[in-house]
């Protein structure tokens, strides 16, 4: 589409584009240059502020924090896939006494912010009901419930996007409702929706950073602890930069995987394509973001 919006540039358009290019580059360079200047002027690149990286203890602590993040992510990812499948089956059910509660639950967990959900599970349970909940459990439970609901919607959209001929042929062959769902519809829906599912898993990974708010010892929490150490010169900016690189690298890997899957499915082009769902949809929130997510 963007290639059609303007003709091949003539002489005046070439000059204008070049001026826009130069002007834009100058503005961008000015902004980035200013940020860098502030970094250097406040001495953020001094070797003293980066010495913390050389200590083995700190390296091991960061690796443990990374492991904690990945543990929470892996468990939350698997559980939210399961919860998503269960609730999707509930929403697609023909029985009203199954589909109505399932719809209500999914809508509730999608509307409540993830932070509030985690606070309810962690602070609400321990202070009001006296049930001690570890930070890990609270984080994983909150992530599972929220992303499970979003994934339920994704699965439902996937099943509804299949050609009706599949369902009709399965019924014509004499399969019962459950068999139709598990043998014919769900496998195809899963394959079609895989890029969207992986994008939602990227959101899960990003939202594990919320564990920082309930003091779960993941990367951001370690970043703040490290960054406030006076002995190392309070290198909070430096630690934040390194942690940011780690997070962005992990999420970029997952997103690249989702893009690769999408390109593969587009090339093979056998099954029906569901309606355009942008990968990395902001179910989010969260942070991210879908709903984001953050």
């Amino acid at each position, binding site marked *: 589409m963007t290639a059609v919006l303007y003709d091949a540039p003539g002489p005046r358009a070439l000059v204008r584009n070049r001026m826009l290019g130069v002007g834009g580059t100058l503005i961008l360079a000015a902004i980035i240059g200013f940020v860098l200047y502030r970094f250097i002027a406040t001495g*953020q690149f001094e070797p003293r502020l980066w010495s913390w990286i050389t200590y083995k203890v700190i390296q091991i602590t960061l690796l443990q924090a990374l492991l904690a993040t990945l543990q929470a992510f892996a468990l939350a990812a698997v559980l939210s896939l399961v919860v998503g499948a269960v609730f999707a089956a509930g929403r697609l059910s023909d029985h009203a006494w199954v589909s109505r509660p399932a719809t209500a639950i999914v809508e509730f967990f999608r509307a409540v*912010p993830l932070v*509030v959900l985690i606070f309810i599970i962690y602070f609400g349970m321990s202070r*009001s009901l006296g049930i001690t909940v570890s930070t890990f459990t609270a984080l994983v439970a909150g992530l599972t419930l929220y992303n499970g609901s979003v994934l339920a919607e994704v699965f439902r959209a996937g099943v509804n996007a299949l050609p009706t001929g599949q369902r009709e042929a399965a019924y014509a062959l004499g399969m019962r409702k459950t068999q139709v769902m598990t043998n014919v519809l769900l496998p195809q829906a899963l394959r079609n929706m895989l890029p969207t599912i992986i994008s939602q898993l990227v959101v899960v990974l*990003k939202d594990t950073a919320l564990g920082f*708010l309930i003091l779960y010892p993941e990367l951001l929490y370690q970043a703040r602890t490290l960054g406030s150490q006076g002995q190392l010169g309070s290198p909070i900016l430096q630690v934040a930069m390194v942690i940011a690189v780690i997070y962005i690298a992990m999420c*970029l890997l997952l997103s690249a995987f989702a893009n690769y899957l999408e390109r593969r499915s587009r090339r093979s082009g056998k099954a029906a394509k569901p309606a355009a769902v942008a990968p990395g*949809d902001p179910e989010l929130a969260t942070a991210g973001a879908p709903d*984001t997510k953050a």
Partner: protein
Amino acid sequence: MNVLLDNLPLYATAFWGTIQLFVLAAIGSLILGLVLAGMRVSPVPILRSFGAGYVNIVRNTPLTLVFFFFAFAYPRLEILDLSFFARACCALTLYTAAFVCEVIRSGVNTVPVGQAEASRALGFTFGQTLGEVILPQAVRSVVPPLTNVMIALLKNTTIAAGFSVAEAGGIYQNLSERGYDVLVGLLWVAVGFLILVIPLTLLQRGLERRWSVAR
């Protein structure tokens, strides 16, 4: 019930803080997202690559990390002394703008290419093509996902509570200090967000149904 009635001013101030954050960040991110989308489709390569780079990096960063940077690391740079609230607004704006840009771009791409080609054939300039032909049609594909982004933004404002901004996510601390039941207090916060979010969701569903394009 007591928890809510006794602390009504607390809830009111906190949710007002949430709404303030939401409105400011929404306006900021819509403007910045529009600018970014313009950069991504412009014929100038530098602007295109900057837009693409910005969107790809920000979409793969946790929002908590952006907040973390603005809350803790930004003061070290000694640029401008901003309140926690202003910094939270900046973080939310920068983060959501990337998603707004993607929504606008994909909305523009759903308009059939033939529309742009026909308007070029009729001699429309770039501005006329966009203003009279493409954008009015793109609105149908842009507004429902944009409502989704705004709902996500509303929910993301709660993260600011972890960074000393007086808004809804921080109510439980106040309640706990006063000795009230934290679970019920938090459930009322959840109900408050339900009240805020569900009308937006219904609006989005309604718009989607009315404006869905048969393909």
